[in-house]
């Protein structure tokens, strides 16, 4: 027990003194997850709009599949993206394996189902009368989608925040696609796993507290947008 308390106090010291290693890992984690959530938002929000607004065969099956993929194991996505980005893979020429950009791409794939699914749910929550009003006033299909997304903005922002939360807290993609290289692809989750296995509890706890604080901030922001 003493060891844990010692670790905890040393961890706080590392945070308060803005330890360069802790800061560097935190900033990298935030940047990679932020990049992935921006990329995912650009793709998934319009895609969610299209799925919601277009009628096509297999729509229900597609939505079921998307919802099933919410709980996609991160190591499975890690493996898939690893195979895609490896030298012999279809995207091997991009040289993204073991790079922060590759990790961001992997996290984008990981959070895409949850972001599309939650966007569809958010848009479905907008009153049908809003759609009628926009159409009646002459909105084109894209203007209608934009209007409904704007009406559902709080729920859409909540979807983005949840996507960010899943991205920053995942370990499978970061480990397999990033490789946990010190000073290059080491992020909060992979560093915690590594430092714990090395017995560096104070650093692990410090990084854990930061990760938990980020989650808390995301939750606070979520309750603001949902409330």
């Amino acid at each position: 027990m003493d060891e844990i308390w010692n670790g905890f106090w040393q961890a706080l010291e590392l945070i308060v003194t803005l330890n360069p290693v802790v800061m560097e890992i935190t900033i990298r984690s935030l940047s990679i997850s932020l990049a992935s959530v921006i990329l995912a938002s650009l793709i998934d929000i319009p895609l969610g709009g299209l799925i919601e607004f277009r009628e096509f065969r297999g729509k229900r099956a597609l939505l079921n599949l998307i919802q099933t993929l919410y709980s996609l194991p991160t190591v499975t996505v890690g493996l898939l993206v690893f195979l895609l980005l490896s030298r012999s893979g279809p995207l091997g020429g991009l040289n993204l394996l073991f790079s922060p950009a590759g990790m961001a791409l992997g996290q984008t794939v990981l959070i895409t189902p949850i972001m599309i699914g939650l966007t569809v749910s958010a848009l479905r929550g907008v009153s049908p009368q809003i759609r009628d009003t926009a159409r009646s006033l002459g909105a084109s299909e894209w203007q209608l989608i934009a209007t409904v997304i704007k009406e559902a903005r709080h729920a859409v922002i909540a979807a983005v925040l949840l996507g960010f939360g899943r991205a920053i807290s995942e370990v499978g993609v970061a480990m397999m696609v990033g490789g946990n290289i010190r000073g290059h692809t080491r992020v909060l989750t992979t560093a915690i796993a590594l430092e714990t296995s090395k017995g560096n509890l104070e650093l692990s706890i410090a990084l854990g507290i930061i990760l938990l604080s980020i989650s808390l901030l995301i939750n606070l922001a979520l309750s603001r947008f949902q409330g």
Partner: protein
Amino acid sequence: MPFLEVKKVSYSRGLVQMLKDVSLQADRGQVLAVIGPTGSGKTTLLRLIDLLEVPDSGSILLQGRDLARASERERQGARRRMAMVFQKPVMFRSTVAENVSYGLKIRGIGRKDLVKEALQEVGLSGYEARVATTLSGGEMQRTALARAMVTGPEVLLLDEPTANLDPNTAAIIDDLISALARQGAAVIMATHNMQQAEKLADQVAVLVKGRIVDQGSPDLIFSGKGMTANPPW
């Protein structure tokens, strides 16, 4: 050729026949009142004219062009020449000014003066910065009317336009409806308020259980000479 013509339109929702062989005409500069009891199909008829629904059969002609089964692009183009105010209008989650300017914005028109003018006409000057979703029912109705008329529609569809309003405001809106018709709009108004129909309409169509049972001038319909001298509701 009438400016707008509904020709033998039938429409059903599921197994329920909402409208059966409905035909009517509307011209610019005139008010056509569609009267009938609740559930007679007035709102459905307005939604079909506004091209928000596709009829099972029949035509909806705007200047002779049938839009009932036209491409979505053409229907959207035609919708830009019309505007509809719903019985219980909904507001976008933004200010009154942004609500009223919606139709202008999507047409790429940035005229704040038109928004101000429209709000003035419905008696809501100074409401620009108010959050539209916090307005009272009557204020929402007036904002919706301003939002519809700001683009200068050629066809204005009004579903019970004064149902939520107090008598004074209703009188202002009645005058505004007449003025819009005088300015050249074809106004089609669904109402169950006989006095309003008699006061404003140039033509009256009586809709009962999805069928037009009588049509003519208000004098004819309300004088006792028409088929509905004793309305069947």
